[in-house]
């Protein structure tokens, strides 16, 4: 890769980054707005502050809510 000249490498970087950005920031929003279920989910997640990128339970507020709800209905009066 490093055998190529700097302008060629820079061009490749810009093209690759551009393609990635186009997929995430152009294609996915277009797909979301044109598909009913995706659009509803997008609005729902935004309204409820749910972040699907968080991977561990302590990162997700809704886990605590769920735990507290289940504790209240299963263990207590």
């Amino acid at each position: 890769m490093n055998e190529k000249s700097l302008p060629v490498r820079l061009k490749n970087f810009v093209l690759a980054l551009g393609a990635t950005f186009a997929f995430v920031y152009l294609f996915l929003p277009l797909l979301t707005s044109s598909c009913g279920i995706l659009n509803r989910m997008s609005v729902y997640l935004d309204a409820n502050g749910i972040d699907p990128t968080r991977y561990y339970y302590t990162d997700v507020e809704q886990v605590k809510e769920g735990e507290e709800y289940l504790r209240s209905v299963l263990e207590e009066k």
Partner: protein
Amino acid sequence: MAQDSNVVIDHGQSSWSDLWKKEDYLAIWLGFLIIAVCYLAYTSFGPKAEYAEKFASLNQIQETELTAAPFKTIAWHQAQDGKGKLKGTSTAFGKFAINSTKTPGSWKTNPVDSLIRSESQAKALNDKAMPAFEEAKGKSEAAFAMAVAAEASAKDASFQNQALNDDAAAKIAAWRDAQKAAGDAKKKTENKSYNYIPTLIGLGIFLAAMFGLGIALMGKSMPAFMQGFSMVFLVAVLAYMLGGQAISRQYGFGAEAWGVILGMLIANTVGTPKWVLPACEVEFFIKTGLVLLGAEVLFNKIVAIGTPGIFVAWVVTPVVLVLTYIFGQKVLKMPSKTLNVVISADMSVCGTSAAIATAAACRAKKEELTLSIGLSLVFTAIMMIAMPAFIKAVGMPEILGGAWMGGTIDSTGAVAAAGAFLGQKAMYVAATIKMIQNVMIGVTAFCVAVYWCTKVDCVAGKTVGAGEIWHRFPKFVIGFIGASILFSILDVHLGKDMGGAVMEHGIVRGGTKLLRDWFFALSFAAIGLSTNFRELSKYFKGGKPLILYVCGQSLNLVLTLTMAYIMFYLVFPEITAKI
């Protein structure tokens, strides 16, 4: 020394100096130093004693109310809310820790919004959210008035009239829902202005110095590390910015994914500058992050939803993991055992966090971790949308659907998203099942580490002694499991209220988790910056990793659904009825 093939051979070369020179030990010391500072800040030098008094007083109110009425009264709930407000993160240290480890925020159209928000922008956001809050507040106040009236009617009948009691309990539940909605709406009116740039510069210097010291102890060049670290940190910051965009987040492409993508684009186009490579200390970042993650692996969480949850999460998961691994070895003949086990754990346990822990425990190559997480991200995005749609289409009960998604979708955030799309109860069940499954990563990492150094890393027909096993064992796993056991005991010892206020909302959310997030973000940026596309493509040859993931996930879907149905509808229907 002449030896036959079955004689124990010890090649262990461990020495005392490993304690301050080896990466695994340094990760443990660094992790536990952070844990100790946070522990002292929230207990001995923190609000623990003050909280104990307040909890005692509020618990007294709750006990009195429970004795007086056959349902949880308004005063009981108000005392509960009072307990919920006692959080370590509200203390001066908590605020300092949170403010000084800020990650770039979310944005929709302008990436600069993730770093800087002016007063006028904050005011505009608050003004926009105000009508919804006013409406929700009005509904909450109306629901409260109805709850007060219903409870008074029940009280007038000395709580002997079942119809009045039921009506009061229902009105109180409606008030709680309305109050929660008002609380959520209020949060959207509390936007503040910020400029994270100075904080990020300070954090970058702090992290460089902290890890730089470890690098120096390992006998490597600290100045070279610190120079390269600036680039790794910059990529991690950019990854947080890109992952903070609303649509990117919706599909599960967060900072970790962007760190790898951005790093790989740099490495494979312009090329990672040579001066950056000394800072690509992937394992040091990951292992330290895992020791901190240990503080969040609380074994007592596994009883959160009773026996059905344990069966769905703790019986199906290891069965799927082991069967997928065997399938990969015997049927698919995966060329790499480490790739096989990382994909198996990633798919069956809990996605990214399990992949990180397992990869570090079996010393998988960074390309193998990247590939596993890539597969998990793609399938998580698909399953997060397809599963609730399918469950709704076939009319599956909400609790069953929630348990099914909680046991199969990899990432916790995606589980919450899919569950919420199905309904509130589905989300509660799904998120709780996932939490129970999350706890399994400690056991998984430990078992994989033991299996690897006693079975996989052996010459066929030869046995190894304890010294050699100890030498091979990834020591950071001891720190990871140690932190997990210590915090599990501490959580039980402190009790539900104090544990929540001081540990979860103090030591963890106001300390260890904040740095753990950054350590993993740094490791993914470093992975990307040191990964070659050609190397990565070798591991994907023949599409075997994809076949392994699809077959394993299919088995997971079938077994989890079957177990969830048996447990929630045949064996413990009374638990399902209560939910």
